[in-house]
């Protein structure tokens, strides 16, 4: 049953054609959300009463941090699908997600750091959130490093899956221990997002940006997965046929 489902819907070829037809929609959704979020966030949302216009960094910092976390959970799910059900495209999804996730994590760190300069007067502060994101970056980089040194395709998929699973088990533990460590050391207690109720005019652009980041992830994921699929299936006849219609 599962095998049949795998053959029918999760075969690389089906995935390739389906995702190709979905791609324009994702691009359109990304452009819409990103355009609205960018303009509304930068120009129409009112300035924060504490942070002034400086808070506008939130519209890239929070979505990138959120997307980075979300992508890691996508990776973990794909890892389970790879290891237990041996679904090929899950493995491809995992390794593609890792790259994008690492980029988003990097983005969250850099934007967080730039935000820190006007708010705290320093480029880096060991607050719980930034530290967690930093560790998340290490987890991503560890995954990528391991996958890059293994030559055999199947082993690379499975070894990566194990790392992703170990990471996702540990991530909550790391996160809470970092929070606990932060309170223990009585660090700066300025929380970036302490505002209890956020005005809708500030919130909607944020939600739009989060959606935009996730759509962007989907777009890059599809492109990256298609490349991987073509490389892996280079010997199948369909790769030749599919490319005739492609852009």
């Amino acid at each position, binding site marked *: 049953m599962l095998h049949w489902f795998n053959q029918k819907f999760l075969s690389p070829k089906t995935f390739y054609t389906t995702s190709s037809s979905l791609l324009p929609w994702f691009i359109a959704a990304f452009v819409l959300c990103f355009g609205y979020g960018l303009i509304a966030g930068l120009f129409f949302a009112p300035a924060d009463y504490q942070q002034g216009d400086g808070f506008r960094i939130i519209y890239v910092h929070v979505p990138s941090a959120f997307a980075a976390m979300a992508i890691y959970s996508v990776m973990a799910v794909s890892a389970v699908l790879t290891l237990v059900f041996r679904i090929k495209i899950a493995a491809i999804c995992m390794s593609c997600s890792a790259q994008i996730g690492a980029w988003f994590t990097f983005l969250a760190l850099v934007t967080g750091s730039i935000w820190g300069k006007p708010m705290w007067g320093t480029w880096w502060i060991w607050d719980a959130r930034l530290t967690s994101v930093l560790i998340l970056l290490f987890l991503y980089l560890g995954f990528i490093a391991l996958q890059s040194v293994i030559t*055999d395709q*199947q082993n690379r998929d499975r070894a990566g899956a194990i790392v992703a699973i170990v990471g996702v088990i540990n991530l909550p533990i790391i996160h809470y221990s970092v929070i606990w460590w932060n309170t223990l050391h009585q660090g700066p207690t300025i929380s970036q997002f302490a505002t209890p109720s956020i005005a809708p005019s500030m919130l909607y652009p944020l939600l739009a940006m989060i959606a935009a980041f996730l759509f962007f992830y989907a777009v890059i994921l599809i492109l990256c997965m298609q490349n991987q699929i073509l490389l892996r299936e*280079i*010997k199948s006849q369909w790769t030749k046929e599919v490319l005739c219609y492609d852009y």
Partner: protein
Amino acid sequence: MHSLQPNKLTIDNLAFERNNQFLFREINFALQAGDLLQVRGANGSGKSTLLRMLAGFIEPQGGTILWQDKSICQHRDAYQQQLHYLGHHNGIKHSLTVYENLQLHAALMTNKPEPNHLKTAIKQVDLTHVSHTQAIHLSAGQLRRLGLARLLLHPIPLWILDEPTTALDADGQALLGHLLKQHLTNGGMAIIATHQTLAILHNTKTIYLGEQHV
């Protein structure tokens, strides 16, 4: 050594590819109690890979391996208890003595290591004079003999030996032939990768890997 249950190993259309190139494919054979299979081929033709696949370490990309008509993918653990694998490296810990190595191997097979049993095995492969020497001081041939001694600890139907004759002297090769014959007449089966033709035994099958022999 008591007789073994009648067993059956069937290989159907086995294939292995790496980096989009087939190392081998369409490997078919069937082995029954008392059969010996020689795998021959040039260096790099995939002999070791095939043997590791038959031992259940590597998954085949195509085809099936059936043990007693059951696929080993589903029953790998049960299957792997039915085989001895002797690879390029003999699985010998260099800092242990010959005797201790066999003790360890027996423990890994969940055998109760009886001293006499171990001593007999050591004697059979003619290592008694070094039985309390650390393996690091042994020669390559002696290590190989020690590897062979492991096969004698516990009667197991399928032997998979990867180039067992390397490093063995004439006596050692004769010993190997003798042990194999004994194993086969007891109803065992063996798969051997080799460059040389072994002393012909009854029921010997041969497959060639690589292009030049087809």
